[in-house]
């Protein structure tokens, strides 16, 4: 009887999990399917899920008519650049917050996190003016800087959580062994916290890759990443759904592959410290 009940609840949970996963995945599936349709089928009032004339024309056109690889390269530079720069700033910051705590450390962390709750549009004008005055508009450097700034609180929080799990005594032992702060961070802290640093890097790459608001506002042609490239298919001449979908699929696939291969690392990183 007990086994039967447990089997039933397992069945219900499995069904719920698949339903929710299906709902989340459906828009991605729809985009992928639309990318293989003609423009006429894409805007059909009675769209078909699988029964349509499959075509690769949209992909051919996207690749031939636009500078996909330029945008792809911009995305790579911006997401990797901001993630590495962010780590260089976040590691020492998280180290000091985790190991040299003061009474105000928690408040500082909360304040950093609260900046993520601020609507980006609230700082749009000052940021735009600053970028204009410093000549950073439509530059990859500008995008690297803004992505670093907006994702830094999350990076510091994640690393802080990781570092807090490392026994303080190990770092004290290294100090007794003659390590200075740089030795302590490079030879002891970083190797121990490597899984956490890797998942922080991965998450930041994904967040930067998918960021659209600042990419659209601060870039035009030279530094536009893939998110801006997708948006370019919504033009005054109209919406080209099939091509837009093909462009979206090509923008999403690289990060989807990265996410797929690193999902274990990511889940561990995001849940670290939550359950002890």
């Amino acid at each position: 009887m007990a086994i039967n009940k447990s089997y039933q609840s397992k069945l219900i949970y499995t069904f719920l999990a698949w339903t929710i996963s299906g709902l989340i995945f459906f828009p991605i599936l729809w985009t992928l399917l639309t990318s293989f349709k003609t423009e006429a089928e894409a805007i059909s009032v009675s769209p078909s899920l699988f029964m349509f004339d499959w075509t690769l024309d949209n992909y051919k056109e996207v690749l031939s008519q636009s500078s996909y690889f330029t945008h792809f390269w911009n995305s790579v530079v911006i997401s990797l650049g901001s993630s590495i720069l962010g780590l260089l700033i976040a590691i020492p910051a998280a180290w000091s917050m985790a190991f040299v705590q003061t009474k105000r450390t928690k408040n500082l962390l909360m304040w950093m996190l609260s900046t993520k709750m601020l609507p980006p549009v609230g700082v749009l004008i000052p940021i735009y003016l600053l970028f204009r005055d410093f000549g950073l508009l439509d530059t990859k450097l500008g995008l690297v800087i803004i992505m670093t700034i907006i994702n830094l609180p999350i990076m510091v929080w994640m690393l802080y959580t990781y570092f807090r799990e490392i026994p303080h005594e190990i770092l004290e032992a290294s100090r007794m062994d003659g390590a200075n702060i740089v030795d302590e961070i490079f030879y002891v802290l970083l190797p121990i916290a490597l899984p956490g640093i890797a998942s922080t890097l991965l998450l930041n790459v994904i967040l930067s890759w998918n960021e659209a608001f600042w990419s659209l506002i601060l870039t035009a042609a030279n530094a536009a990443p893939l998110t801006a490239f997708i948006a370019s298919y919504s033009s005054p001449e109209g919406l080209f759904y099939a091509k837009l979908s093909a462009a979206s699929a090509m923008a999403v696939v690289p990060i989807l592959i990265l996410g797929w291969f690193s999902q274990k690392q990511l889940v561990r990183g995001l849940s670290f410290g939550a359950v002890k």
Partner: protein
Amino acid sequence: MGSITLKKVTKNFDDVKVIKPIDLEIKDGEFIVFVGPSGCGKSTLLRMIAGLEDTTSGTIEIDGQDATATPPAKRGLAMVFQSYALYPHMTVRNNIAFPLKRAKVSADEIEQKIANASKILNLDSYLDRKPGQLSGGQRQRVAIGRAIVRQPSAFLFDEPLSNLDASLRVNMRIEISELHKSLATTMVYVTHDQVEAMTMADRIAVFNAGVIEQVGTPLELYNNPINRFVAGFIGSPKMNFIDVNSTDSASVCCLGVRPEHLEISRDSGTWQGKVGVIEHLGSETFVHVHLASGTTFTVRASGDCDLNYGEHIYLSADPSKILHFDEAGLTVHKTQTVN
């Protein structure tokens, strides 16, 4: 050289005075044990000597030099932590080599020193393993090995055996004592276990609430404790205390007698009581006796003790072995008292 001198050393955490002014001289080559209950400040003082905690006031001298503001690495001391604090990502070899690499010692010399340390501590077959693949005792040996190779002027041990099981603890206790004899280096050892303190120390410093109550050899503390706290803390099972009316001697208000100094009789004695729990250890027996006054005495009896639970007995002790304490808990010298 490895002398350490503490002069009026204090430590405050915000408004809390964790260490009240302490003066202590640790001689070169001495094995001194800081012992006391949890939260008495013994570990904090050790960490202050190591340089891991700032000193609020006073000075710490190492080999005659003021080291109060010197960073930990420059004090020439090595520390062994309670949790071993090994580097989990490094092999045993690299753990031991770490302080030498930081000191820019040549590769040949590092190899030689690792070989020496691993020979002393029987680590030869574990050198290429990581700490996670070692038992508690082996990890503690690696931690000691890492300390040895630096050839420090003094070793600091912060409750190094607390995480080991009872039998391993006894073995490691002997190993550390032997290591001290062979290296003849100063060792400062923190523990809350008074058995460790008694068996290992040249001198013991008994801590209580941020002050050192008494410093002396184990037998000095056992035979001539300065006050009731030290008398109760040193010795296992702990000393029995009984309050007395100050009739004969105005200043004495409490007597202390060790379990091993009490004699049991079925016919007569100083104190009458009823046998409570009897703990047979084989070689000896601990008998808990409930006195008529409500106090419970512990008696160390022979292994073949044939008392029964609930039996009425008498206890007595050689008057010269009974300690007397005044109202403030200080030991009253025997010539001052009338029995």
